[in-house]
């Protein structure tokens, strides 16, 4: 009797809660694994975990938020600091554009090399508020800065990485057009902080897995939760993208993890054939119970592959190319625990291809003419497509790199004269050295079909103070990747397209791509370093010269100068005797 009444009291509130908020859609979790064989014997593996969620405060009558599938450690700081959208990404390794045939990894939101934090945060203008500092004294700081600092600290703690700005003013606010918001936002400002010195390591993987509802224990995340295997791959990128719920819309947070595996074994036969168990040392895992969908996809390459057991084949646009994609539903209990093998038809030993198809659009950056403190950035934008592309090329530099705008030149590679007409607009946001801040440049470029553009930006590196150098100053300092934004891509959703069945598989149309941005690699710049062992010696020597000068000057200025009469006997003197015919010069007094 007592027990049943207790059970009744426990159940009733839940019923009331469910009935009161029936219009709130439940949280949904989707995961997918995409395998994309690359032409040079490598395989790109992309894990994606997407959670759709409503505002955590809606599904509970209590004032506290209720999280079932969503991580409170991620969403609560974002909600408290009025962040509408956030993207954090870590990238390590270099994506080889030429050999892979793709302009970048399949995770389109992965940033350039190193770490990157960007997002949309509510703009409080120049409102200031009191904030307690470490010493206990409160001081007025800008509200925007305070919220940004709170976010980067929370995220840094979450990802075991230093994600905050290393010096004041390092966060750039001019990239709003490059990273537009997904929804309609008013009074929100964009912030962008690249950290090119960050690397990706196990400390970043473990918190990533703990953010997932499956926690690396079941579903596809169990394949990912093997750092010994994952971190032996070449190029790796990890990241999250959070879109907070707004205006009744559901929010979405998405985590991705992509790596590039070399399929050719080190020893033995050069055979590209692979299977899930060879890749992950596990068979297909049991699905995560709360997952709404769990999909494995294989992007079929141009060469014929045979897959056992095979899945459903569909045609999709992948990064501007119409390809066939084979899909498996991993929630199907018949495939759980099975191993899937992939072989290339009729291929015994793998032969590395002699030629590679370069992607339709690519960009690369180097520094040339490096002399002492000067240099020139040389940016190559290649367009192999049939159509002209409108792009924005953006650069972000720390305050010690100063560009010379009047010496910027734009050439087409096969022509000798400059093409300033291809630069339709230039936005320049200078830094304020020596205060910490960044210089950003946005070039609005029009790249003609079948052309290569060369953009030359001469620059000078400032000499840094003793305390501004890194501990290993001779290594140099990295500057973040340049970003080429493609303005005319429409996405891969082909439902708006009338008829895809007539287009042959393999047809390339660069507009049907979800890749809006292509990144260059980071650059390591040599900074002129002083001798770090010398502070005492320099002060001593410079002050010695100053003291010598001061002493001599003071002596000269303050001593009296006068004439004394010296008796003739003691001093040799020159006497001039003028005669009629000759001039005699007698020297007296030299006998002593």
């Amino acid at each position, binding site marked *: 009797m007592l027990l049943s009444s207790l059970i009744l009291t426990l159940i009733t509130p839940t019923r009331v809660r469910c009935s009161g908020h029936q219009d709130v859609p439940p949280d949904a979790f989707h995961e997918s694994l995409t395998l994309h064989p690359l032409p040079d014997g490598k395989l790109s593996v992309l894990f994606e975990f997407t959670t759709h969620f409503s505002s955590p405060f809606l599904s509970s009558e209590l004032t506290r938020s209720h999280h079932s599938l969503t991580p409170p450690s991620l969403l609560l700081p974002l909600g408290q600091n009025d962040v509408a959208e956030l993207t954090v990404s870590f990238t390590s390794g270099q994506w080889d554009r030429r050999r892979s045939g793709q302009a970048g990894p399949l995770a389109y939101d992965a940033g350039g090399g190193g770490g990157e934090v960007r997002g949309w945060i509510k703009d409080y203008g120049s409102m200031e508020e009191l904030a307690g500092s470490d010493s206990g004294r409160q001081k007025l700081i800008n509200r925007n800065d305070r919220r940004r600092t709170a976010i980067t600290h929370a995220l840094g703690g979450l990802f075991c990485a230093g994600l905050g700005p290393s010096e004041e003013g390092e966060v750039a606010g001019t990239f709003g057009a490059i990273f537009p918001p997904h929804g309609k936002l008013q009074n929100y400002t964009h912030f962008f902080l690249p950290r090119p010195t960050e690397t990706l390591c196990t400390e970043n993987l473990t918190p990533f897995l703990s953010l997932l509802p499956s926690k690396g224990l079941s579903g596809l995340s169990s394949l990912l939760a093997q750092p010994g295997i994952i971190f032996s791959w070449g190029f790796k990128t990890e990241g999250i993208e959070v879109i907070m719920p707004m205006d009744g819309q559901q929010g979405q947070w998405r985590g991705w993890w992509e790596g590039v595996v070399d399929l050719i074994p080190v020893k033995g036969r050069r055979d590209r054939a692979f299977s899930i168990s060879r890749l992950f040392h596990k068979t297909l895992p049991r699905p995560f119970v709360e997952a709404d969908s769990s999909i494995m996809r294989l992007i079929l390459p141009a060469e014929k592959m045979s897959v056992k057991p095979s899945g459903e084949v569909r045609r999709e646009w992948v990064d501007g190319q119409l390809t066939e994609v084979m899909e498996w539903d991993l929630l199907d209990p018949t495939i759980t625990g099975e191993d899937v093998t992939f072989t290339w038809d009729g291929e015994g030993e793998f032969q590395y291809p002699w030629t590679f198809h370069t992607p339709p659009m690519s960009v690369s950056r180097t520094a040339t003419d490096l002399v002492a403190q000067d240099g020139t950035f040389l940016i190559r934008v290649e367009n192999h497509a049939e159509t002209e592309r409108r792009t924005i090329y953006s650069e972000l530099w720390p305050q010690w790199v100063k560009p010379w705008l009047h010496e910027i030149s734009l050439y087409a590679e096969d022509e000798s004269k400059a093409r300033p007409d291809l630069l339709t607009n230039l936005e320049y946001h200078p830094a304020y050295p020596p205060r910490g801040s960044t210089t950003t440049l946005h070039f609005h470029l029009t790249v003609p079909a079948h052309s290569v553009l060369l953009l030359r930006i001469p620059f000078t590196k*400032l000499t*840094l*103070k003793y305390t501004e150098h890194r501990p290993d100053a001779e290594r140099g300092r990295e500057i973040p990747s340049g970003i080429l934004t493609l303005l005319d891509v429409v996405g891969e959703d082909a439902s708006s397209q009338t008829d895809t069945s007539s287009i042959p598989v393999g047809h390339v149309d660069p507009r049907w791509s979800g890749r809006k941005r292509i990144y260059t690699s980071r650059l390591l710049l040599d900074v002129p370093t002083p001798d770090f062992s010398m502070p005492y010696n*320099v002060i001593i020597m410079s002050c010695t010269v100053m003291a010598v*000068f001061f002493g001599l000057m003071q002596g000269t200025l303050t001593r009296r100068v006068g*004439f004394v009469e010296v008796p003739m006997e003691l001093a040799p003197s020159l006497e001039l005797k003028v005669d009629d015919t000759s001039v005699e010069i007698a020297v007296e007094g030299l006998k002593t």
Partner: protein
Amino acid sequence: MYSKTAKTEPARLPVFITAVVIRLALFQSTLISSALQHRPELVSPQTSFRSLLEGVYLRRLGYDPYDGGTFVHPPDYLGFFSLFGRHLPVIAPYVWILLDIVGALALVEIWTTRSGHHSLSKGRESLVAALYLFNPYTIATCVALTTTSVDNSLLLLTIALAAQKRAIPASLLFALSSRTAAYPICLLPALAMLVTPSCKGASVGRSAAILLVACGGSFLSSTSLSQSGMLCYWKSIDADSSVGLPFLTPNVGMWWYFFTEMFDHFRHFFLGVFQFHCVIYVIPVCIRLRHDPLLAIAILLSIFATWKSYPTLGDMNVPAGLLACFPEVLTELKHPLFSLTVYAYTFILLPLLHSLWLVRGTGNANFFYAATMVHGLNSSLAIVDVLGASIRTGAKARLVLPAVDLEDDKPDSRKGEMQLVQLLSAVDP
């Protein structure tokens, strides 16, 4: 305003023509001119032609040139050189050669004013002009297209007008040259002494007041212009690197390595010490050399050239040229050969060790720093030498010998002879 009616002296014209020809020939060689434009010994962030072009370009685009940190020239230069617009790189060599000639003419005018218009002095005019125009540092500074040449010419014009006792034109030009560089304002007492005529009613204070009013007026007028957005003068003061030393670019001065190696805690203190050290000599030198304010100006300019925040080799051009106007001081120098030899030595070592540090990478910063120390120490010793020589010259000029009876030509009627000594007790002026 100073009228450039150059008397067609047959001795001066060949000097000017040769100087122009040499400069034009060096400008034709793009290798030499571009190499010199990038030398840190000749070019500092405040005087670089590259940043002048950048500032003019940014202004044409509509940006504020002082925002980026590439442009720290004074707004007067920004306004003046913006007039040339796109053609500035082409016209600049001719402007710089013209400014050098103007400076040389001003120097000749100083010499003639000082020495009176004797026939002896006319022969020396070409020598004075030649010593200024053929000074290798002057030629190098001109070919490097640094604004040091512009500053030097303005300074020489100011001094020439002051030497001619023309107070109002001198004060206007003084206001201009103190706006374009930070340190000439410290020449105010010396210029006031120079410009004061020696008649009874004039006083140094009155001249100083005129100069001060001119400077104050020019600053106020430029701030009112900045309200209307024409000249961003207050921004340029904020960006002005002379006082706050925001850039640590290597140069031939004593400051850059000192402040590179310094911890932030002491930065403000030592900035104050170095600036104070630079200006502390103004009053004592002016008091000690009040018999010859032009010499005081020359010595103060050489002190600034050695101890200012961003010196270049071209800053010594004006003091070296002015010294040519004092032959009596030059004979009293104790070690002129030593100073000249060490100048030649550092002339070779400074670019060599700089490239060893930054271009080849086989040396480190200490090599260049040591050469800078040698250059600074040598300049300091030379300044002290010149100061000592000028004091001795002044004492000799004031010496009044007892009257000698000319009819009595017995050779040893004099009791003894006069020797110039320096006493160890403090002076009582």
